[in-house]
């Protein structure tokens, strides 16, 4: 050992700060010039220091290692910090979502045919937000990707299944089977 005790605590603090994962005793003995027992002593000293000074975070033992962790009381603030704030869905994204919801599984080209405009960015948003997902490929030339709604979609709209989507009184009955093969929406 070639450092003063206080130096040891400082070094361990620095290492703990730079590690996104729990630091194991093994890694710490490899990196530093300390013995395991010394490291354990230093770690519990740091732990005690932080508690006594009522710092904003603590040194905790987790998953076979040590890491700095915050207190539950600060969770709501940390949530605001790390969670991206989502803007509301654009009209275009809502349109694409409604088409996918009622006509799934459906290909990108089929959505575009119904809307008459491209849907790349809206579909991207819906995929990112996990409202829509890929549901295999259509047995057609080019084997295009089929899209459908996710379980998250049901969850957020409070539906227990797709059958709970509001019905369309004006939509002609029948044609449920061939719906997936061609475009009978307005026939």
């Amino acid at each position, binding site marked *: 050992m070639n450092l003063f005790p206080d130096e040891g605590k400082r070094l361990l603090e*620095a290492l703990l*700060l*730079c*590690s*996104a*994962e729990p630091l194991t005793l093994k890694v710490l003995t490899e990196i530093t010039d300390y013995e395991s027992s010394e490291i354990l002593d230093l770690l519990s000293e740091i732990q005690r220091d932080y508690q006594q000074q009522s710092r904003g975070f603590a040194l905790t033992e987790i998953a076979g290692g040590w890491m700095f962790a915050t207190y539950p009381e600060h*969770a709501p603030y*940390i*949530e605001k910090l*790390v*969670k*991206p*704030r*989502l803007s*509301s*869905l654009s009209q275009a994204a*809502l*349109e694409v*979502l*409604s*088409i996918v*919801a*009622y006509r799934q599984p459906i290909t990108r080209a089929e959505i575009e045919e*119904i*809307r*008459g405009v491209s849907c790349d960015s809206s579909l991207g948003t819906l995929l990112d*937000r*996990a*409202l829509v997902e890929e549901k295999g490929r259509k047995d057609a030339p080019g084997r295009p990707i089929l899209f459908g709604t996710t379980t*998250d979609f049901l969850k*957020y*709209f*409070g*539906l227990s299944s797709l059958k*709970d*989507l*509001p019905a*369309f009184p*004006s*939509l002609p009955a029948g044609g449920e089977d061939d719906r997936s093969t061609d475009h009978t*929406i*307005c026939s």
Partner: protein
Amino acid sequence: MDYQVVLPVFEGPMDLLLHLIDSNELDIYNIPIAFITGQYMDYLNQAQEIDLTLSGDFVLMAGTLLTIKARTLLPKRTQPSEEEGAPEDPRDELVEKLLEYRLYKEKASEFKAMEHSQSRIFFREVDDKSLLKLFPAPNPIGKLTTEDLSKTFMQILESMISRERTLQLPKETVTIQARIAFLLKVIRQQPGGIAFRSLLGGDSLRTVVTTFMALLELLHRGRIWARQKEAFGEIYIFYNDLYRKEGDPGEFVS
């Protein structure tokens, strides 16, 4: 005897010029242009000898230096110029550029020092993704309801229907190739011939045109033949029996 010449490498012609000025302890505001041009050309020649690839910018600067040198060698106009003051020195523009470049070069070395000291500082590392997983996923739909979905879908259907009305002509993907295959199959099944009119009935304009062109193509290739008993009478289309023997699969093979 083999010996290696180690030539200093420069970041460009300006860098080389500054080096020559500094190493010869010359006054940048009063560059002896003939002297500096000579040294510059020496470097270029040496570089060429040891096969050091220099960019074209070095040659361009050589041209500039030689031009300035030529202009300084020309006899100066002795008559007082229209405007008073000293005649413009051809080196001025170069000097100004060199001074500016030197400033940035100095700053670059300061950045290098800053880079070095900062390379020993580390910042807090955070695993954003696992941190994010601790919190429930954000609501991706905001205040939307199923009613919004159904209403939006109805609006899309309505606009789709009105769009189709105005477009009139639906797109069809009937190709001549496909029509040829279809016609061969139909005509082959009618040894007694088939009425031309019946082949064209009931389809869209686009399909009629495509069918007609397919018929012309088949006639041209001799796969079918046509007969008209009287002027303006019905035309009958017959399969060419020569192909029947070969067991024509009913598909057109080009």
